[in-house]
């Protein structure tokens, strides 16, 4: 369960201060698919950064499985991200000059898995996203859709509790976007991990269990249940 309580994040000093998040509160149950919807500049990315421990809002609490990640030391936050969080980005951020295997292995290397455990998990993750045959290919030789599937394999390889996806289909055409969506929601239903999608795409948001609308750093409305 993720509980966000009265989170406020301000950028800049007094006169030029900009409130990115203003007293944001909500709760996400385990295994849910959640869409954080808003226009660019609404604060939805800042919210994702705060929930994943990348950013530290100055006020409020973010409880993940009962632990306030805002009170953790840097080392513990790093460990939290390495063990419990998976990231998928709009621009994929796969290492072009590394092979698919090496890309997916990165979170496991950071998590200090042994070489044999890494191999097992990486191959399993590549199988899930359907890239088993691309194991030894350099990522630069993959298509956009394949790159995002590779990024998904990297996000799920360490079996995280929460997967954050920032505009996961934003750089893909409709057909490949649909494949990636299907993969993400399928994993969410089967794996039991919580899926948090940050998007401005209403169609994608409509497919999620919970939709949190953010406007000017505030929660505008929360919709539960699919249409």
């Amino acid at each position, binding site marked *: 369960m993720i509980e966000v309580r009265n989170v406020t994040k301000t950028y800049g000093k007094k006169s030029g201060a900009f409130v990115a998040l203003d007293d944001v509160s909500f709760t996400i149950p385990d295994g849910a698919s959640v869409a954080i919807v808003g226009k660019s500049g609404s604060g939805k990315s800042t919210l994702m950064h705060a929930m994943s421990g990348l950013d530290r809002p100055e006020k409020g609490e973010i409880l993940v499985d009962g632990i306030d990640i805002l009170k953790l030391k840097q080392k513990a936050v790093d*460990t939290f*991200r390495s063990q419990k969080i998976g990231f998928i980005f709009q621009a994929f951020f796969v*290492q072009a000059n590394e092979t698919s295997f090496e890309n997916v292995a990165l979170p496991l290397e950071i998590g200090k898995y042994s070489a044999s455990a890494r191999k097992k998990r990486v191959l399993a993750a590549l199988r899930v996203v359907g890239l088993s045959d691309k194991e030894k290919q350099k990522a630069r030789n993959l298509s956009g859709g394949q790159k995002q599937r590779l990024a998904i394999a990297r996000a799920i390889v360490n079996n995280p509790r929460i997967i954050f996806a920032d505009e996961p289909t934003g750089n893909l055409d409709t057909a490949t976007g649909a494949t990636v969506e299907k993969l993400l929601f399928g994993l969410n239903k089967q794996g039991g991990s919580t899926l948090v999608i940050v998007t401005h795409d209403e169609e994608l948001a409509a497919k999620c269990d919970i939709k949190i609308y953010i406007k000017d750093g505030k929660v505008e409305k929360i919709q539960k249940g699919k249409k």
Partner: protein
Amino acid sequence: MKTFDIIRRAGRSLGNAKVRTILTSLSIGVGAFTLTLAIAAGEGARQYANTLLTTNIDPQVLAIAKDPSFFQGGQTGPQEYDPNASLLQRAAGRTVVKQLTQADIDGIAARSDIESVSPSYTINAQYITRPGQKKYTADVTQYDAGVTQTVAGGALPALRTQIKDTEIALPEAYVNLLGFNSAADAIGKTVTIHLERNPSLTQEQIQTAVTQGAAALEQLAKPELKDAEYTIVAIVGKSATALSATSNVQVSDAQAKMLSEFSTIGTSSFQRYNIATASVKQGTDPATVKDALVKDKGYGVQTAKDLQGLLFTIVNVLQGIVFGFGILALITSVFGIINTQYISVLERTREIGLMKALGMRGRHVSRLFQFEAAWIGFLGGVIGSALAIGAGLLLNPWITSLLTLGDGNYLLIFQPIPIAILIIVLMIIAMIAGYLPARRAAKLDPIEALRTE
């Protein structure tokens, strides 16, 4: 992240930027090249000096002086006044160097650990000649049985054996001067050494002579003459591995003593010696004898090893100069590494951001970049030392003939351990150079780094 994985990842990142990696490595390679050559030349020079000493000098030999300052250039500050010191020594304006007396020599000879001792005799020979030839000046010394000499003609006895009392060894220069056709031609021929001595007269003798008239006075003032004849046993030549290409005419120990005493009898220099060479019995360490002599008698003593140390000091100074240039090249390459790594951090902002977002600790990111720098140092060290070894192996025969070092002697000697140490040191230097860029990478904010626009 495990250290091994970081090292592997660092190597892989460098592999992805091959040209840049190799160019940066080459800059550190220049330093490695110079340093490897400096180390090799130093080692070669030391080995060469060692060869010189071991083939030339009996390791059992000690050089003994009355005064320890003799071996330190005489610079030990003012000395106690000694009425026995010769006027000449005092007039020279230098510190008076005390001399060994016959009693000192006898005392050393009486020691159970000394096989033989021979003082270095001062011989004031007027000239050397042979029938039908001109007269030439000559520095006559006693034959040194503790040093190997190269012969151009004839033969010398083995190390530690004296030449006979009737024999003489001449340097090559006298072959033509004394009218021989060749070195071989000179062997077995006879030469004469001429000495003169001014009589030391008593007041009484002079007074008597004055009363007897001018003829008696002239008779009295006439120098005493001595002509010693010797058979040439060897012509001493020059050699690459000979320590001192001697220009002295050499006679046996006993003859040298006789000739020396002829010209010094009645003077303050009689049986006074600056230095003596003693041969320590086989099986006894010369160093222990040295210590005993220094402790008991206060003599200045040098062993063959001390002489080696002296030569090594010279080698070390020369090596230090070449080393200095290598260090300069290294300092230059340090800035190259810093520059390259800064560019690398800038280029890989996204990658660093991603790694940090995925939970990689700042310390580990920093280590990743430092290990990359260490790899560059390693590559530079390997490239530089390999080139140096290659160049050294190619140039060695040429250097040997240019410096006439003698066959089988090489100036550049490469040894694995110093080169391995050099490479490790280069890696450490590269890591230190990579510190600032690595810290910058570690401090990178992942949110900033991953911003798409």
